[in-house]
């Protein structure tokens, strides 16, 4: 994933208007590795947050992006709130459909709060791994 690419925030209407061809939809109890062929051929994979406090889709996103090296659009749906967007970006989501009522400016602001993070994620390596020859 391009380190400069940022999470695209979509309204429900924009999401509904998107092309539905070649989309794989996974419930959050699915093991992405069981769907590797379908994912490899998809243009978009959609993952679900039934409640924002259910964090299973973060692990799914990580596996799809890092382990399966999926290069298409990885979209978050469901209870998508402003304060979890940065986690979505860091686990490999490329787009997120904001829940109705979330102000896009409140949401966007949360993506730039931290200059950097401690640990490696899908987007960046851990700071100490830069130049690691070990």
């Amino acid at each position, binding site marked *: 994933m391009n380190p400069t690419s940022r999470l695209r925030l979509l309204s429900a209407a924009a999401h509904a208007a998107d092309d539905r061809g070649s989309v794989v939809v996974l419930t959050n109890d699915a093991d992405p590795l069981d769907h590797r062929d379908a994912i490899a051929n998809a243009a978009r994979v959609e993952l679900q947050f039934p409640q924002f406090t259910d*964090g299973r889709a973060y692990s799914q996103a990580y596996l799809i992006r890092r382990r399966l090296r999926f290069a298409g659009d990885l979209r978050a749906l469901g209870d998508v709130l402003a304060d979890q967007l940065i986690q979505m970006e860091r686990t490999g989501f490329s787009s997120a459909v904001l829940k109705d009522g979330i102000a896009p400016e409140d949401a966007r602001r949360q993506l730039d709060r931290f*200059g950097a993070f*401690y*640990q490696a994620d899908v987007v960046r390596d851990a700071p100490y791994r830069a130049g*690691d020859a*070990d």
Partner: protein
Amino acid sequence: MYRYNEFDRAFVQSRAAQFRDQIERWQDGRLSEDEFRPLRLQNGWYVQRHAPMLRVAVPYGELSGAQLRVLARVAREYDEPDADVYRRALDAQRKLGTVRLPTHHAHFTTRTNVQFNWIPLSKAADVMDLLASVDMHGIQTSGNCIRNISCDERAGVAPDEIADPRPFAEIMRQWTTLHPEFAFLPRKFKIAVSGAHEDRAATGWHDVGLRLVRDGDGELGFRVSVGGGMGRTPVVGTVLREFLPWRHVMNYIEAVVRVYNQYGRRDNKYKARIKILVKAEGQRFIDEVEQEFRQIVELDGAPHTIPRAELERVSAYFVTPAQAAAGRAPDPAATAARQAAASHTSPFERWLSRNVAPHRDPSLRIVTLSFKRPLQAPGDASADQLERVADLVERFSCAEARVTHTQNVVLPWVHVDDLLPLWEAARDVGLASANVHLLTDMIACPGGDFCALANARSLPVADAIAERYQDLDELEDIGEIDLHISGCINSCGHHHSGHIGVLGVDKDGAEWYQVTLGGSDGAARGGDAQPGRVIGPSFSAHEIPDVVDAVLTTYVSLRQSDGVRRESFIDTVRRVGPEPFKAAAHAARSPARSAA
């Protein structure tokens, strides 16, 4: 100690600014109560019985003098509720018989954090800014995430140490902090790490317990156990790896937490901890973790492998402080004064043998300040006491202290010549009770006086026992014993691991207490970690001191002695079984109730 760099500092400040913004959006309705709750919890803010509670993280228990002073300031300036909130709290608790609800206090917890019980939420953002000024915060001290990592209070100074666990604890602190994948796990997740032969960190009782070991070639690694925990279902962790090379510890923990995040139960919060998954799946869980670990290493490129250079960089923060390293030959005059004082003053002599432990440097000692004394709850510290502790820590311990999981404070760098002046100063502020590891060195959660989850109050029970057992001769005769008191099954007072455990239960709206015997946290004095066993139906609050007395009298009558060594309480319980204790406890019930 680890020292924050610009990155750490900017990070904590960003977190404080983020929380301020979240509070504002909650106050003006842009964030609903349900949306805000997990955010405030992951910043350490609970809503309790009477007022909010703030839990401040103390990473692996290490505190500086400067941090103690800011904690004192938070207690002094912010730990005070609005008058009507306090009046309502007093009215409610007095009806139950509580006589004290101290304000302007801090409380050391069993996970080596610090809690404040009375700070109004309206002052939350200001307090977080103040804490950030000394590199402190409440990040991940609550919520269903990876919590503050706890450690051995003697890390880096213990004579029985294999390797210092703090560099690893710090690397893991960084790795777990705002980990994007693991902020919404099925339930909370606790890691403890120890580097010594004796397990002083209760590692077996944690979701992940790590113990530094060396393999046959002298290589350093971790023994990894997973799925320990207290609560409704006490379970000691299962060993997944007898030896994991140290550089892989985060790759391995990622595998454990990812399997848990995917498969842990989310339908029932009482079955959501990883221990339930480990028990239900057994070998399948282990296989799943091992397979995930292999894939992290082989397919993902082992992204969390610790380079040797990074371990060395972090380890450099944990070298012996310059003042202690410079050394100071023992002064004959100080030695003479100490010996004279010890022979004439039995409290000092007792304190030397109880509260002072050997250090890896023969000229230094590890000293425990006891926060177990009459009229104050276990682990409670007033603002003034915190300030005085900061004085002692700066004067006698290279400005470094450790919070213990038994709710005391340890000074890790005390010169042998300073023991007498330290004892005198500690005694003057009431922190020199010579009771470490004795009955009155008990663990107690805040219980029903503060906590909204509690079924019963813990502190009046702790009070009653502390009051009854004030004679140090009697306490020494009973010997080392861990008494742990929890106000509910959530087990913050670690009752399952007490040699004697007391658990508050609710029966028809009244406070009752279940007693367990034979538990252990894994330290040498109690043997391998194991949960205690319940002895009969629960007791009323006023029966508990009599029950404890009956149990201890039974022990004294049954213990074996070879003239040199005396069998400890826990060993007697294990040898003779629960029956004699059960009978004695039952006989100690109030006559009216026994007759009924």
